[in-house]
Every structure is written in C-alpha cells, then in structure tokens.
C-alpha cells in the first residue's frame, strides 16, 4: 500500500537516506532497524514530508505523494507517531486526542473507541498531557494517530525509555491494530528483538542504506548480521 522507491535525503553534505526502497502492505508490520544515526528517523520524516527528499518517490496505493505538504500527506491517510511521542504538553489528554481527528470531521474515530483501547487515557482525560508517564504518553500518541482513521501508521521508536512489560504491551497492540484495522505499519526501532517479534518483514538500515531485507526469523537467526548492524 505504501511504496518507497529509491528515496534519498540529504542534509547539506550528509546523506541521511541513501536510495532506500521498500514496500509496506496493508495489514502488515514492516520493521526498520538499525543503530543510532542509521537514517531510520530521517526515513520516516521524509515519507511524511517533514523533510524534502533529494530524489526518489513515495506513493500510497499508486498515488505519488512525494512532494506534498505534511498536512496533506497526513490527510491522505498517513499517520506518523514521531520520535519522542510528540505529546502536546500544554493541552489536555482529551484535547490531544480530539486534535488528531479534527481534519476527519464526523468520520473520525469517536473518543469512546480510543478509550476502549486505552482505558488509562480515559482516567486522565482532563489532565494536561505533561502529567503523563512515558508509557501513557506512548498510548496517547498512538491513540491520537488512530483518531484520524489512517491507512498507514509510522511509528518512530515507540519502545524508547519504556519498561519491557510496557514494550511488550505496545508491540502486541501494534500487531493487533495491523490485523484488525488493516493498517500498513512501518515500525522503526532500535529494540530489534521486540520489533521483529511482531513484524512480517524486517529491514536493516546502515548509514542510510538498506543492508538487509529478510523474514524476521531469518534476521534473528543471522547472528553475524545482527551483531554487525544492530549490536547484539
């Protein structure tokens, strides 16, 4: 559903994304792994239009969205949960959620449904988002992304700073979302094992380039590769 072709992004003389091509089908999870500085975040930021690519294409169901404005890409159905969660601290939990669905208008996911997925958020609905813990913020930013009923979901290191129990919960939630809502999920992670545990496909980036593209089981088994690029 989401097609990336030969995408290249430069920050001045630094090439952050180097001719990356990948496909993210509906109802699946594609994990993008790599060490710090490998280009994972830049890849996501280029897809959603926060950064302009030097060359290459991004397409959604055949429609090219490469140089669209960020807001238009989002309104086309690509949701991006950014690095650091991007929770708007000055707004309440409920305001954060509502904001995510305003562009959808009446077809947005009712908050009731979001609260079913994340009961903790309902408890804290009227509180400023600054008061949330790391795990709650992750739930909030994912819930906020879902309110707009996206077709694709881009997640940037959701496990960052979270306890293993929470990480497992979030990963299984992401898997469920892909299965039940048919989302095309692009999951960027440094925590390779947990990402690969729910992924249909695994891609390893190094210095902006794709160095491996495999079934997750084979990736986990390839100890040499894992050690070289992912550090374990």
């Amino acid at each position, binding site marked *: 559903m989401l097609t990336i072709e030969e995408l290249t992004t430069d920050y001045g003389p630094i090439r952050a994304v180097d001719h990356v091509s990948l496909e993210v089908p509906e109802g699946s999870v594609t994990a993008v792994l790599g060490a710090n500085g490998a280009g994972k975040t830049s890849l996501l930021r280029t897809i959603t239009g926060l950064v302009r690519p030097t060359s290459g294409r991004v397409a959604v169901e055949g429609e090219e969205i490469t140089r669209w404005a960020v807001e238009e890409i989002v309104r086309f159905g690509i949701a991006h949960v950014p690095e650091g969660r991007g929770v708007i601290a000055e707004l309440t939990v409920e*305001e954060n959620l*509502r904001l995510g669905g305003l562009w959808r208008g009446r077809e947005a996911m009712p908050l009731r449904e979001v609260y079913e997925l994340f009961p903790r958020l309902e408890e804290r609905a009227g509180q400023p988002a600054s008061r949330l813990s790391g795990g709650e913020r992750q739930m909030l930013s994912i819930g906020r992304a879902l309110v707009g009923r996206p077709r694709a979901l881009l997640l940037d290191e959701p496990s960052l700073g979270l306890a293993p129990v929470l990480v497992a919960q979030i990963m299984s939630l992401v898997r469920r979302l892909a299965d039940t809502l048919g989302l095309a999920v692009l999951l960027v992670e440094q925590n390779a094992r947990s990402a690969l545990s729910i992924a249909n496909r695994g891609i390893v980036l190094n210095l902006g380039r794709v160095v491996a593209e495999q079934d997750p089981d084979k990736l986990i088994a390839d100890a040499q590769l894992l050690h070289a690029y992912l550090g374990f």
Partner: protein
Amino acid sequence: MTKFIDLTLSGISSGAIYAAVALALVLIWRSTRIVNFAQGAMLMFTTFIASAVIDSGGSYVLGFAVALASGFVLGAIVERVVIRPVENAPPLNAVILTLGLYTLIVAIAGMIWGNTPRSFPAAFSLRGYTVGGTTFLFTPNDTFIVLVVIVVAAALAFLFRATSLGLRMRGAAFAPEVARLLGVRVGRMLTLGWALAALVGSLAGLLVAPSVFVGPNNFDPILIIGFVAAVLGGLDSPPGAVIGGLVLGLALSYVSGYEGSALVPLAALVILIIVLMIRPTGLFAATRERRV
C-alpha cells in the same frame, strides 16, 4: 480624594486599551513566537482608514467596521508575505523585520495622510458621569471602552477554549510540527492568529484615537505600554495580558496625575525592567524558561 478616584477611573479606561494592545501582542507571540513591534503602526494605519471613511461621510459604525476588517486583512497579509520567511529564523531577524515594518507603515501613513494629527470622534458622550454634585472623569465612552475590551477578551477566550478552531490554533502555536503531523494546516492557523491579533489591535486604535488624535506617531506610546503590559502579564498568557493592561493603566495613571505625563514612558520602562529582572516570564507564566 476626587482626584484619586478620577485617576483610578481613567486608569481603568486606559488600562482597557493597553489590555487590548497587549492581547494583540500575546496572540501573535503565542502563535509565532514573535513580538510584533509593528502592532502600533498597524493599528494606527487602520484608524487612519476609519478616519478617512468617516471624513468622507460614512457613519462611525461604518468606519469602525471598516477599520476592523482592514485590520484583519492587514494582519493576514503581513504574516503571509513578510513574516512567514522569518518565522524559523533567529529571533533577532524577526525583531528587526517588525521594526522595519513599523518604520515603513508610519512613513506610508505620513505619505498618504500627512504628518499633522487629526481628531477622531468618540463612540459615545465624552461628558463625565455626575454622582451627587461631583462630575467624575469617567465618561460613557469610557464605559464603552471597558465593556468592548471585556467582550473581546471573553470572545477570544471562548474561541480558544471551546471551539475546534481554537484547539487547532493552540496546537499549531504550542507544537507546530506535531500539529502538522495531525493534519492541522499550521500555516493557515498562523495567518489567522495574526489576522485576529491585528483585528484586536485595530479595536484598540479606534478606542484610543479620540484621546491621542490620529497621526503617524501618535500611537507609539500605546505600543510601548502595551508591550510592557504584555510582558507584565506574561507573553504567553491572554488573561495575563488583560490583567497586566489594567495594572499598568492604573499605575501609569497615578504617575501621570501626581508626577506629570512626561514621566509616563519612563515609569513604564522602570516597571518593565523590574518585571524582567524579578519574574521575566511575567506574572501569569504558562511556560517556564528553559534553564541549562
């Protein structure tokens, strides 16, 4: 005693005007993190437009409406054309840019309408209320001023707290990048912020015009005092702007009454310095300074 009451009442009335200017500055600061030093010039310009409308036979209401509308449009155009390029530049660029805009607008006003100040009609009677046998310096026009500012402040509060548009504007102001990722057309929200701010500024200009007369530089003190009021209340806080305006209006009224009007700008400066030394984020700071 009458003098004190008079000064207090006139302080409330001028405080309302400072509050309006401060509100305009705060609106722009919240949406684009820029202090619009051209605000005074912009509201001067729209007041001149109203004056031109009234002079050529239009009613006060028509002039009023035209001023507000042109303020809205002017604010939108300025943001879109002139300010957008410096929104992500170092803050000094925006400061110099708005100062340049101020200089330009004042010069253009001088070119179109000349540098001689002209009078401007008040909306309501300028004769003070009489209670018992004493006539106070508070007039029906002053009542109008205070009421209008209260209504506008309340309307803005409602817009921001209770509407989807307001939510979008707040989201765009607090976290523009994240807001874009939520489908908010941030650019439009910023333009709208400036347009609304300029509208509020135009309002302040119309309210203060009868007492300062309309001339290219007659509104300069209003901008400076409005800025001090905004800083006093906290640049991030609309209610702070209103309260800051009132407090400053009262304080400066007393200074003017007991020490002479020439000292008013210096008094404002002293208050500004005190606030910036003691509590730089203002009395009602919503955000805290980042300390390293």
